């Protein structure tokens, strides 16, 4: 039987991971989740399933105790020190103090009130990452005895019951729920959990189609729990926190028993996109140095070269906006357009785009990240939602971000007039007005 086979495989791996963890500053014990095919509840009927490779996943959500240890280790993530660019005012708001979770946040209860940025940094510090939506959903589809319980009305109902109940004032400890087939606990019934690519859940009714479209195209319109999760992800920004949103980390199956090098963890804490250590390649085939952008106001957006309609219009509208600026502002401004499509947008393609649109390469930076995960990181930081479609295109929101001189996001809007108005206003004035 397949399921006993998977369960048998899971157990020795758990042991191996637990052994590897000994003595290392790693997260809580992890379980092996066997890979498989995954279809998002909001994907179209014609979309092929996505293959998910086996991965390791924290057995339980990250607790207050563990997050406190992280914050002590890296005080930049203390709630009294973290930039508001990286978490809204609800960040760790349930804690009594910056270094004391207190009675409303018991040590073994899941940490909540954590932004995507903070969750991502925590996982990186453990040598892991946030699970993707596909990974999380695949793990969460398992019941105690089945790989996929989503067709079981009673299983769906039990999950729905949890979602429909109001949030308790104090969350219970992790680990008390029944383990699912993979050994993971509390994927349902305790807290929502961040995923790395929450921005792939289009805000239903915003950006991509209406809610009615979502339901009519859905793979399984009966999977209400998945709809609720997709809707929640669609409502989030990377800096959002809520009193019921926590996370757990994922790791490659080849996980090493050592934390990731600090360079991949540190970057974020100041809120500057230039500190991300994510490489961008420019139209000249060379890495784009941050110095080309730092010190200037930067209008940043995302595109893909084979985009038939929206992206050319975005470039056209950006050109018009730049042309309408007063000369000094125009000279100072840089426009950064990052490709969503590393597989096809080669430097040659970027160079062609620069030429064909008549863009000044000193002020217009067209660049492509090294891989899909970097694309997702840039997009999330800029507040841009997207997902790849089966026909090789990308659905994406048309949002544009205005970065200040040190690479912090100052304004995000779908409306270029808003960005243009902000460009005419000194940053200090805008901050005071908000």
């Amino acid at each position, binding site marked *: 039987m397949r399921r006993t086979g998977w369960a048998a495989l899971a157990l020795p791996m758990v042991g191996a991971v637990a052994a590897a963890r000994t003595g290392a500053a790693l997260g809580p014990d992890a379980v092996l989740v066997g890979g498989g095919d995954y279809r998002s509840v909001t994907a179209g009927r014609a979309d092929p399933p996505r293959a998910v490779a086996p991965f390791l996943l924290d057995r339980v959500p990250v607790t207050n105790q563990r997050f406190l240890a992280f914050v002590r280790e890296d005080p930049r993530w203390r709630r009294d020190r973290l930039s508001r660019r990286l978490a809204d005012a609800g960040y760790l708001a349930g804690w009594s103090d910056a270094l004391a979770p207190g009675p409303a946040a018991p040590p073994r209860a899941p940490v909540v009130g954590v932004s995507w940025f903070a969750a991502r940094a925590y996982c990186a510090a453990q040598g892991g990452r946030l699970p993707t939506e596909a990974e999380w959903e695949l793990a969460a589809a398992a019941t105690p005895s089945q790989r996929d319980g989503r067709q079981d009305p009673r299983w769906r*109902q039990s999950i729905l019951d949890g979602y429909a109940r109001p949030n308790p004032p104090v969350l219970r400890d992790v680990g008390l729920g029944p383990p699912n087939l993979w050994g993971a606990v509390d994927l349902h019934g305790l807290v929502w959990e961040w995923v790395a690519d929450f921005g792939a859940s289009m805000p239903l009714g915003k950006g991509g189609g209406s809610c009615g479209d979502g*339901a009519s195209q859905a793979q399984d319109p009966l999977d209400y729990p998945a709809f609720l999760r997709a809707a929640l992800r669609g409502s989030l920004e990377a800096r959002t926190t809520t009193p019921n949103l926590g996370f757990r980390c994922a790791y490659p199956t080849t996980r090493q028993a050592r934390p990731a090098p600090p360079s991949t963890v540190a970057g974020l804490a100041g809120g500057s996109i230039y500190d991300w250590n994510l490489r961008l390649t420019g139209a000249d085939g060379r890495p784009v140095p941050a110095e080309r952008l730092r010190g200037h106001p930067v209008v940043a957006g995302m595109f893909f070269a084979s985009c038939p309609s929206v992206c050319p219009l975005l470039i056209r509208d950006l050109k018009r906006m730049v042309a309408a600026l007063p000369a000094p502002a125009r000279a100072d401004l840089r426009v950064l357009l990052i490709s969503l499509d590393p597989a096809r947008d080669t430097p040659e393609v970027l160079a062609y785009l620069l030429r064909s649109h008549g863009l000044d390469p000193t002020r217009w930076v067209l660049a492509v990240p090294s891989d899909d995960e970097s694309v997702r990181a840039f997009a999330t930081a800029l507040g841009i939602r997207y997902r790849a479609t089966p026909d090789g295109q990308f659905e994406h929101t048309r949002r544009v971000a205005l970065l200040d001189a040190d690479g912090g996001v100052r304004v995000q809007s779908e409306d270029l007039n808003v960005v243009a108005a902000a460009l005419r206003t000194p940053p200090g004035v805008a901050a005071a007005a908000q």
Partner: protein
Amino acid sequence: MKKPPSRPGWSPSTLLLLCSAAVGLPGACHRGSGDSHRVVLTTTDAPAVPAPVGERAPRREVVELEVREQVMSLADGVEYPFWTFGGHVPGKFIRVAQGDSVELHLKNHPANKLPHAIDLHAVTGPGGGTASTFAAPGQESQFTFKALNPGLYVYHCGTPPVGMHVANGMYGMILVEPPGGLPRVDREYYVMQGDFYTTGAHGQRGLQSFDEEKAIAEKPTYVVFNGAEGALLGDRALTARVGETVRLFVGNGGPNLTSSFHLIGEIFDRVYSDGGTTLRQNVQTVSIPSGGAAIVEFKVEVPGTYAFVDHALFRAFHKGAVGQLRVEGPDAPDIFSSPQEPRPLAAGAP
């Protein structure tokens, strides 16, 4: 433009109440000192409705709604986790005038678990406001619309799965009064029908949950007025005095059933069908679709207790769709004779 969500500005305080109490204006008060054209509207919980708009020029108004997810009573001994616009089912009643520009703020309380949004049927524009007001727990969103068409309109949550949000109580009504307002009446009430789908059978006590299968099969366990069985019965009945004219703003949140709204022992003198401007007279039963509404008016001539029901009668007697109107005042024997002692049929009758 959509402002980035800002938590510091978020406050659960009931600005509306503070505001109207402090200023003492019926229905509204000015917000801040800088912009005298912005008015924060007072909204009401059913069965109350805000004061009539009356004769005035269109203006700019602020409406603040707060989404609360909370366990409340659905029937005697039966608890249910409701999702609400303002802490009650139905949601707050909003009353504006045709031509008003309404700046609607939707606050999703931080203790809530789910994202929510609002689609008002009074809105002209894609999605009815859903996209603009989609907000995560703890976030506030807003959008502005112009009330172009007069009428009584349903609003509801537009977040998927929309049916589930509506089935959990996320609906209410907005009245857009025509120029000059509605004709004056003596009493106005807000009544809204809804169907509920609990995992337990009708009457099963304890905390219930939304039952997806029953909802999809359109087999409710409860059909009620104003969010709970008995919400308008006994000492919570609507009241009027003999000789008064009563106006009911009747809506149907659904999500599934069409209501056959009927007031036993009365005839609706005037009905604005479908909540629009077509006036029909002398109507016995009003059909109100899910997501629809009607304004019914009648003069009460005879004292007594009147039941109003969904005339799909098994809903009334087995699922809760019954309310009461208690009319006090002098008897009117020329219209309706008092009950008399029954007497046996005469012997030898055919």
